[in-house]
């Protein structure tokens, strides 16, 4: 092979390898750009009012998003109550009891459900909860988010339960424990760190969901009137404020964006932390 040919190949090698590094670096930079923009634009709008006051009427500046923050927490609570138990139990079924064919169908359906666009989940919750009673409600929003929580919880629960060595199950059973006792007292505690992480990540994911809330929980500029009434949430608030024509609302959208992003990123970091600790023990 001639000399220039080798030089050429070496040059291509160097250029392409550098480009892959640049690409990876660029993608990581996006994360810091997002963080930077939100802190820069939202940071100075964050004050006590933001966390304690209701939104002001159109045209007045100031006010906060206290109702949206509480609303988001309420919706998450509903989602957790509805989604986590089903996800956990189904995950236990898949890892501990499941046969072959039925488990395959359950797994496949779970993946399918996980891939359904969130806006379609919103339509489903609308048809299921809003249509019969003819008005938007916190409950409908909770149902939509709860459905989204299920598939994520199932898969992580199954994965971490499968990570528990079989010798532990055998040891418990050899001591005379029944199967469910083995699961509850030995297998679940051993996998608890991972399972908790999965749950936390599932909640963190739906915490930022906007699309399924638009026509289920809808939105509210005041404190909610209970579970059967429309309720405000941070993501929907960010959306309505961002597309509004008012500068003061834009400012608050940035602040709300910062709060939401921090909430999501911190729970992701927290989840990793729990996982690392449970692995170290």
């Amino acid at each position, binding site marked *: 092979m001639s000399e220039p040919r080798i030089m050429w190949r070496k040059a291509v090698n160097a250029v392409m390898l550098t480009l892959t590094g640049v690409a990876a670096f660029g993608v990581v930079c996006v994360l810091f750009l997002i963080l930077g923009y939100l802190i820069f634009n939202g940071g100075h709008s964050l004050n006590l009012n933001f966390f304690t006051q209701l939104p002001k009427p159109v045209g007045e500046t100031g006010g906060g998003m206290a109702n949206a923050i509480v609303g988001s927490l309420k919706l998450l609570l509903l989602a957790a109550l509805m989604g986590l138990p089903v996800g956990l139990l189904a995950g236990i079924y898949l890892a501990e009891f499941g046969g072959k064919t039925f488990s395959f169908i359950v797994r496949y359906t779970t993946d399918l459900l996980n891939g359904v666009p969130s806006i379609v989940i919103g339509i489903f919750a609308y048809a299921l909860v809003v249509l019969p009673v003819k008005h938007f409600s916190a409950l409908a929003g909770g149902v939509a988010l709860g459905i989204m929580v299920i598939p994520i919880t199932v898969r992580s629960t199954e994965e971490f339960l499968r990570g528990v060595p079989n010798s532990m199950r055998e040891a418990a059973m050899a001591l005379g424990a029944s199967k*469910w006792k083995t699961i509850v007292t030995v297998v679940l505690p051993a996998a608890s760190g991972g399972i908790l992480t999965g749950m936390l990540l599932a909640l963190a994911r739906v915490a930022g969901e906007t699309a399924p809330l638009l026509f289920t929980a809808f939105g509210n500029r005041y404190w909610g009137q209970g579970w059967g009434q429309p309720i405000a949430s941070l993501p929907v608030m960010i959306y309505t404020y961002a597309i509004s024509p008012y500068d003061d609302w834009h400012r608050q959208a940035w602040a709300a964006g910062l709060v939401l992003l921090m909430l999501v990123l911190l729970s992701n970091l927290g989840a990793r932390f729990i996982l690392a600790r449970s692995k170290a023990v």
Partner: protein
Amino acid sequence: MTREVPPKSGLRAFVDKLKGGDEIAHLITLTAAAGIILITSLLVLELWRTSQLSRAKFGWMFFWTKVWDANFDNFGAAPFIYGTLVTSAVALAIAVPLGLASAIFLSELAPRRLSDIVSFLIDLLAAVPSVIYGLLGIFIVVPLMRTTLGPALKKVLGFTPLFAGPNYGVGFLTAGIVLAIMVVPFIISVSREVLLSVPREQREAALAMGATRWEATWQVVVPWARTGIMGSVFLALARALGETMAVTMVIGNNPQISASLFAPGYTIASVIANEFTEATGDLYLSALIELGLVLFLMTFILNGLARILIVATERGGGRPA
């Protein structure tokens, strides 16, 4: 008195079984698992049932009609399907090279520690809520497109129909760029896993034959993993098709079919997001739900394909080219 014994013993048997517990536990978890199947079937059923009006009225013409007019109850999905496909195509055109390159860097070049840290950061990027991408899209990407990026593209590529026409800042291209950033983490994390699962011998054999690092990667490792990489692309595509908020905020929301990427458009997900609460007539609502059904079917097929491809590579490895 003796008559009451049988039911009591029945109850006791039940309690005993509960104390033994295995059957009960099995049943409870089975119910939860069956619940997932129930929810998913119910979802399909509800979409089908509530879109009945629209399906009956428009039939297959729904897909070809370009008009979306609530005043005359005439609804067609064509502009929305077009917008969804175009924005997703733009997103993939940007995200696939970027994602694949990053995945190659993380699996082939970077030391394991660095690779793990970067992968973690990229996972965080995947966790950023879509409404925040939309927020940045409106206030950062749209002005950038209007003042800098758009005019520059027009100067270089303005002679093609793709980059002709007025540039408003919002439109297919802007939506595609924002989508690209949103789906790139999925391509990277799945492709990285697939590339890492390529056997070490493959790389060593290529290097031993005198291939450079890049040649070994591009001509041996990547072809070996190509089915899995395709899977990651399908997965990303399914996400891009269904993405709602970020797209709604930057696409301009105008139901038209235009060859220019600068033109404002509309996607299936955004029209549902925008008009669902305002849909006054039953037919209007039904047409929107039928759009939801179309979106569901698109992502359903893509996700199925992606799953099959990824499983196929991780099981046996693709055939080397």
